[in-house]
């Protein structure tokens, strides 16, 4: 099993890995050991292949990893009992993203998506309204329980795309917001 040659020299394959909002440079060498932000770690990832339980041994400490990938370098897995999402770019893609403005460019726009399929029971906001953190935005019923979707940051309601009584799919955009300037 051989990985693509490293893009920008060195003795291993270089990646940029984002986990929990932090970004790290990682080099994977031919033996499968890793260097994370300059620190070398002995590593082995074994097991019966994707979509199964894998064993990661990092610096002698074993962990079960059960990973799923969505397309294009996005991984989601359980590690040490918590669920983690990670994005892995190769070094070239990371450079291109940085040059084009990258992740920062979309800041301020946000939308409330339905976190699960369900029935819209109530819309608690109006267009133009500024919601405060913790304010209820939409109430969606699922599993016979009403779920209040609340704001976690202040924002202005830009558009409301659903109405009470409407069935919504998971991921469907319910309300779009604009950023609120803070003094």
């Amino acid at each position, binding site marked *: *099993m051989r*990985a693509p040659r490293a893009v920008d020299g060195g003795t291993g*394959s270089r*990646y940029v*890995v984002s986990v*929990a909002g*932090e970004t*790290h440079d*990682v080099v*994977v060498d031919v033996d*499968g050991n*890793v260097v*994370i932000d300059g620190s070398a*770690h002995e*590593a082995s990832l074994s097991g019966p292949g994707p*979509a*199964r*339980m894998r064993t*990661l041994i*990092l610096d002698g*400490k074993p962990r*079960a*990893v*059960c990973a799923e*990938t969505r397309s*294009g*370098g*996005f*991984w989601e*897995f359980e*590690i040490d*009992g*918590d*669920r*983690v*999402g*990670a*994005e*892995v*770019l*190769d070094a070239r893609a990371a450079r291109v*993203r940085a040059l084009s403005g*990258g*992740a920062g460019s*979309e800041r301020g726009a*946000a939308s*409330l998506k339905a*976190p*699960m399929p*369900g029935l819209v029971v109530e819309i608690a906001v109006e267009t133009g309204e500024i919601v405060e953190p913790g304010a209820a935005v939409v109430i969606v*019923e*699922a599993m*016979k329980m*009403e*779920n209040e*979707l*609340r704001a*976690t*940051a202040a924002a202005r309601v830009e558009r409301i795309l659903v109405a009470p009584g409407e069935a919504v799919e*998971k991921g469907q955009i319910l309300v779009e917001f604009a950023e609120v300037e803070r003094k």
Partner: protein
Amino acid sequence: MIESVLVANRGEIALRVIRGARELGIRTIAVFSDADRDSPHVVHADKAVLIGPAAASRSYLDIDKVLEAARTTGAVAVHPGYGFLAERADFARAVADAGLVFVGPTAETIRAMGDKTEARRRMADAGVPVVPGTASPLGSGSEAREVASEVGLPVVLKAAAGGGGKGMRVVRRLDEVAAAFDAAAREARAAFGDGSVYVERFLERPRHIEVQLFGDGFGNVVHLHERECSIQRRHQKLIEEAPSSLLGPEERRAVGEAAVRAARAVDYIGAGTVEFLYQDGEFFFLEMNTRLQVEHPVTEFVTGVDLVEWQFRVASGEAIPMRQSEIPLRGHAIECRITSESPFDGFLPATGTVRHLAIPGGPGVRWDGGIGVGSEIGLHYDPLLGKLITWAPDRESAIRRMKRALGELTIAGVSTCAPLLRRIVEEPDFLAGRLSTAYLTEHPELFDAGLDDASHTAAVAAAALLEHERRAAVPAPRMPHGAVRFSDWRAGTAPWFAPVADGNG
């Protein structure tokens, strides 16, 4: 002993009942909806009958279809499990009218205890203390507001037909009572087909203590000691244990006797539970559940009694096989409910397909599950995937064992509440038994997502190695530049909506 039983339920409790029946040589008949064709409760039954589409109202809640399945398969008894039709007096009556044995109390008992306001009246008459509040359902939001101002805030609005936290709202300000009444009534109607709501004074930091009861119709009523279920969120129990760390032998006997008194007051037959709230040295009757409880395994662990076996024996006309003094109480048991919910996203229901399942084993560990690899977890039913139960000679050891067992549990493909449970079993107040139903709201730090440094580094290494391996296995794809990313809006550690864990239920 009855010859056969139809289990009118699904998931882990249907499998639990089938297990109990099989061990007694009782022929088992499962019913299932289109969504449950591959469920473990189906494959472990002797017969299985498709009774309708996924929607519970057209399958598990459809009395006619359940009785038709019993008729065609020649079942002589029906076990309702918990939830669905378990506390529907009309179902118990329909089963009896069809000439079948209902594994549970009489329709009259279910009716009396199912109407929470009547239950309060009857318990007060029997000398069992109840929480101050209304004696009958309320007519409107404004009436609710009036009563609330009489009883004194905070109050809790509750569905008269309720249970499990559905149709329940805690209100702390008078001007919120009317809106909360409407929401509770709406939820109650959706969940139970009955929108009646009543008001009680809300105890801020009570402990939830309940007593397991058994009656046999020969005048024998015994209790199998208490359980404590104070760790709740949104009025739903999350962790249960037996015995309670709160009670000494004297209090244990007192609350057990009060529960037996309550059961005698309604001529109780079969398995039942009397729930109490305990605060500041006082017990208040909360409600009586006329069925097997989700958390019955902790009682089974500390008494050695198989409660489903007792249910079948009593339903077959046998007497309870033990006297009160013979019922053991040994060691300590803890149960963690494993639900398909994202605890750090305000317990949002999660869906998915179970891709991998690792069940903990070894001494003192029990798993009661309703899922297998390949199970589709949807939104049609209760999110309870299974229950992890541990036993040890004392509470501290049982918790350490639970911590070990939770570390072995893997359910891949769907988010569960296990990450939260793993934090609770290490939290000092929980370890010390400083519990109340407000526990989760008083410990917001448990909901702070975030890996420790070692786990973070391991996650980074795992992601890099997984991606490295994937690229080696397939032609390297071009990475989308500036593509989808985790939304700022949902970033951070604050949950989408705050967990409301301050209930009684």
